[in-house]
C-alpha cells in the first residue's frame, strides 16, 4: 500500500517561552516492510539541528526554536509504501542488543498482577513465538479498548487494574508482561490506517515489539488483536512511550501549554 501522511502538531503557550528544544523521532523506519517515497519534517520558525540514526535504527533530528515562543508547529508530510510482513521487523539495521530491552521503566513497572497475567498466559508453552501471541491475546482480553479512561502518565499496572485503556496502555502492559518472562520488549510509535470496519481509529498509533529468539523483533498490536500489517507505518521505538515518543520537547518558561494534533493518512492505491 502507498500512503500519504500529513501530520501537524502544534503547541501553544499561554505565556511566551524563552526558547524550545525538540528531539524528533518522526521518520519512517527502514526495513523490508516499508519504503519511504518522500518525507519532509519541518518546524515552523525553528532551526534544524543535527540528525543521526540511533542504536535502535531510528532516525532522530534535533530542532531549536528561539524565544519568545508562543507557538511551535511541527509539520510532517510524506509518502510511504508498505507491505505486510506479518509483524516481523525484517531487514531493520540496529546495533542495540535485545537484552537492553529488559529494563523496567515507571510506565512498564511489573507488579504482581502483570507477572501473574504473564505466567497464566504462557502456561506450559515454551515456544517463544507462541508465548508472544498468547501474551498479546491475554493483554487484549484484560484491557478493553476504552478511550478517555487513561492518560499519558498511566502505567501498565494501573491500566491492567482498571481493565480499560488505549493503545498506549495495551503496549505498556504487553511489554511489562513479556519482560516479566525474560522476553525483551519495546514500545513502537507510528501510524495506523483506518480500516473499513465502520469504527473510527486514530491515525497516530502505538504497539509493542517482542524479541523472539530465532526470528527477531516482531510487532504485536494488542489493542487491535493483530500483528502490524500493510496498514501500519513504523516510526521509532523505545523502552516505553516516553522514550519512543515521536516528539520530545522542552520549552523554557512558565505557563500552560495547549496541544493540537491533526493526522491524515490516505491510501493512494490499493
Amino acid at each position: 500500500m502507498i500512503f500519504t501522511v500529513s501530520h501537524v502538531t502544534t503547541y501553544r503557550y499561554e505565556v511566551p517561552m524563552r526558547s524550545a528544544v525538540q528531539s524528533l523521532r518522526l521518520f519512517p523506519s527502514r526495513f523490508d516492510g516499508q519504503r519511504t517515497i518522500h518525507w519532509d519534517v519541518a518546524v515552523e520558525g525553528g532551526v534544524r539541528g543535527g540528525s543521526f540514526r540511533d542504536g535502535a535504527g531510528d532516525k532522530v533530528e534535533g530542532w531549536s526554536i528561539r524565544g519568545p515562543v508562543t507557538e511551535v508547529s511541527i509539520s510532517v508530510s510524506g509518502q510511504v509504501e508498505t507491505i505486510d510482513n506479518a509483524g516481523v521487523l525484517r531487514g531493520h539495521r540496529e546495533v542495540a542488543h535485545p537484552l537492553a530491552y529488559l529494563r523496567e521503566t515507571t510506565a512498564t513497572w511489573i507488579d504482581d498482577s502483570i507477572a501473574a497475567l504473564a505466567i497464566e498466559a504462557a502456561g506450559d508453552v515454551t515456544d517463544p513465538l507462541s508465548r508472544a501471541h498468547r501474551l498479546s491475546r491475554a493483554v487484549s482480553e484484560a484491557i478493553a479498548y476504552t478511550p478517555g479512561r487513561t492518560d499519558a502518565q498511566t502505567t501498565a499496572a494501573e491500566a491492567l487494574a482498571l481493565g480499560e485503556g488505549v493503545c498506549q496502555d495495551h503496549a505498556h502492559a504487553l511489554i511489562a508482561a513479556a519482560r516479566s518472562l525474560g522476553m525483551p520488549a519495546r514500545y513502537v510509535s507510528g501510524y495506523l490506517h483506518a480500516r473499513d470496519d465502520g469504527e473510527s481509529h486514530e491515525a497516530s498509533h502505538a504497539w509493542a515489539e517482542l524479541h523472539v529468539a530465532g526470528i527477531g523483533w516482531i510487532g504485536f498490536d494488542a489493542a487491535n488483536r493483530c500483528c502490524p500489517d500493510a496498514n501500519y507505518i513504523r516510526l521509532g521505538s523505545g523502552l516505553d512511550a516516553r522514550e519512543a515518543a515521536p516528539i520530545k520537547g522542552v520549552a523554557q518558561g512558565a505557563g500552560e501549554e495547549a496541544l493540537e494534533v491533526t493526522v491524515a493518512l490516505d491510501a493512494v492505491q490499493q
Partner: protein
Amino acid sequence: MSTYFNEMYEHGQVREPYARLEDWTRAMPAELRQMKQAEAEALFRRIGITFAVYGEGGDPDRLIPFDMFPRVFTQNEWRKLERGIKQRARALNAFLLDVYGRAEIVKAGKVPATLVYQNEAYERAVAGFTPPRGIYSHIVGIDIVRTGADEFFVLEDNCRTPSGVSYMLENREIMMRMFPDLFRENRIEPVDGYADALRRTLASVAPAKCDREPTIGILTPGHFNSAYYEHSFLADLMGVELVEGADLFVEGGFVWMRTTEGPKKLDVIYRRIDDSFLDPLCFRPDSMLGVPGLMDAYRSGGVTICSAPGAGVADDKAIYTFVPEMVRFYLGEEPILNNVPTWQCSKADDCKYVLEHLSELVVKEVHGSGGYGMLVGPKSTKDQIETFRLKIEENPDNYIAQPTLSLSTTPTFVEEGIAPRHVDLRPYCLVGEKIELVPGGLTRVALTEGSLVVNSSQGGGVKDTWVLAE
C-alpha cells in the same frame, strides 16, 4: 601488624626510596611538625580546597586531612605501574567501543551478555556511536593497592569522572611550599603537567566538525556540589570555562555558551555530572542540571562529551572481574597489573563461599561507590555481619566479595608521632590522541589505626605521592 608490607621499613631496614626521609623526620621536632601541619591547613583553607561530607551537617567547608609524610615510589616501581595502568586504560576503552558496537567480546563468549546489556550503566543512547578517536573514557582513574615489594593489585576502575586529582596537584604544591629542601635533596618527578595534558587530551577528541582551536568547558552540577572546588580548580588551571547546564543551549546541532558577547560555540565538554542528568530530553526528564538536546548534538557530531555517557559499563564491579580477559582479548597481551581475586555472589558457588567466610572477606555492592554499603569482615561485629548476610541472601546479584587485602602501610604523622597507616593509590590516566599519565597520583590513607577504609567520606586522608627520578 607485622603481616602488612611497610613501604618504608623492610626487615628493620629503611627501603631505598625513603632513605632521605628518615633524616628529615629525625630533624623535625614535634613543635615544628605541629607548626607545619597548622600552616598546611591554613594554606588549604585559604586556597579553598574543601570537600563536603554528605549527611552529617556541620561545617560544609570541610578539609580533607592532609598528611605531610610523603609516599614514595622508585622509578622502577613506577615504570611497571605506568605500563600496567596504560594497558588497562586501553583495554577498557576497547571494551567500551566494542560493547556499544559489534560486541565481539560478547559474541566470543568472554563476557556474559547479561552483565553488559542488563547493566544499569549500559546506555542504549550511545549504542552504535563511535566517539572521536573511538574513545569513551578519557580520564581513567585506577585504584591500586600494594601488598608487597612487588605485589600490586587493581581494586577498581573508574571510567566515568574519577575525582580527587585536584588533591594530587595541591598536595604537591603545598609540600613544595613548606619543604623546599626536601625537593632539592630528592629528585622528584613533577606532576604539574597534568592540567596541560588534560587540556591536550580533551582538545584531541574535539568533533570532526570543529575546524579551529576547540573551545573546552567543564560542566559542573553547580557550586553546591561537594567537588565544585575541583571543577573550578581544573577549569582555572586549564584556562577553560566552567559551565553549568543553564549556561548552555543547543541550536543547529551545536552547543553554545551564553556569554556577555552572545553565543559562543563549545566543542568539548568535560562533564562532571552523571549520565542521567545530562539531557532531560534523553534521560531524566526532571533534570535541571543538564542541557536539553545535548545528546542529539553529541550523536550528530556537534560536540564531544568526556567521558562518554555509558562509559560506566566498563567500571562496574561485576565487569571488573573480566578486565584481565579484556586485556588479552583486545590487546593480545598478558595483564601487567592483577585483579584482586573476586567472588561474585551472582554465582551460586561463589555466593555459598562468601556466606561461609563473611568474617574474612570484604563485601561490596556492585554499584556502590565511595566506600558506602560495604562490609569489612574482620573489622565488623557479629551483628553487622549477620545484617549483611541477610542483604546478600536477599539480593545476591548486588554483591561481590574479595579477600581482605593486606594493604601496605606508609609512615604517617599521628598524634603520638609517626606510625604506619594503610594506603592506596589512584593514578589518573588520560586517553586521547596519546595515552598520558603523570608520575604519581593520589595516595589516600586510612588515618584510623588498623583501618583499611581510605575513602575521604569515611575518615581517610591524603598524601603527596612521589616518583623518584633516576
